[in-house]
């Protein structure tokens, strides 16, 4: 019993909800979340290839879903996730090679990733929706 009380008094490693969200941690979590979303997105990629292989009718079913607002929303989300995961992945490569470890540089590179993701995703969909 005494030992249990002693253990109760020991300092705990701070839990996640205690930390103030920072750009570096939030972006790290989003790298994993977008990775999971993209892994699920492979199902849609497979559906596309299967639909085309099965013929015009099954492709029409796929295309109807893809151009439907729900399909467009999913494709928009996946494209944003893809570009984020790609650009943040490049940021990870810099870390693997030993660069961008200064806090200031880690934040700057993070801001670049977010900016480029928004620009590329925006440009892609502006083109698809016939805006440019």
């Amino acid at each position, binding site marked *: 019993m005494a030992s249990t009380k002693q253990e109760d008094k020991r300092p705990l490693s701070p839990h996640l909800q205690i930390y103030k969200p920072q750009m570096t941690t939030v972006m790290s979590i989003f790298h994993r979340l977008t*990775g999971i979303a*993209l*892994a699920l997105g*492979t199902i849609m990629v497979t559906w596309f290839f299967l639909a*085309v*292989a099965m013929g015009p009718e099954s492709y029409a079913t796929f295309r109807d879903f893809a151009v439907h607002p729900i399909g467009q929303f999913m494709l928009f989300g996946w494209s944003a996730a893809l570009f984020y995961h790609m650009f943040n992945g490049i940021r990870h*490569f810099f870390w693997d090679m030993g660069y961008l470890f200064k806090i200031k540089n880690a934040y700057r590179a993070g801001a670049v990733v977010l900016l480029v993701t928004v620009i590329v995703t925006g440009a*892609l969909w502006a083109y698809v929706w016939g805006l440019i």
Partner: protein
Amino acid sequence: MGLCVGADMSMKWEKTPFKSDLARARGLGSAQSGTEHWIAQRLTAIASLILLVWAVSSLVCLIGTGTDYGSVVEWITHPVRATLLILLVVATFYHAVLGAQVVVEDYIHNEALKIAKLWSQKLFFIAIGFASIFSILKIAL
């Protein structure tokens, strides 16, 4: 003498490994496969990155031309595009398997559940990966 030092060192290493006897008896710990996973994750990332730059720009061109059945079939049928698409599927799906494995290993702590999840998701990606590759070949050939 100089040659013998190396031999002595290797013997000393054998006698006093960093693991305790109990840790060795339990046989847990490193699976001796972490580095391969790490390298494969990055190799597939580089391959995916290069192939996706091509795929996204090529897809943008396709959308510009039109996404009717004929145009899409023609797009996939080109031998270079068909090859690049198959490589893209291999690189990205493999990358997804490796990533999904890490996520499961991090968050699922029940050993039986973890192994079931790892195996089923690996088999699932192999299945849909093969379905994609077969479809591309069927369209292109």
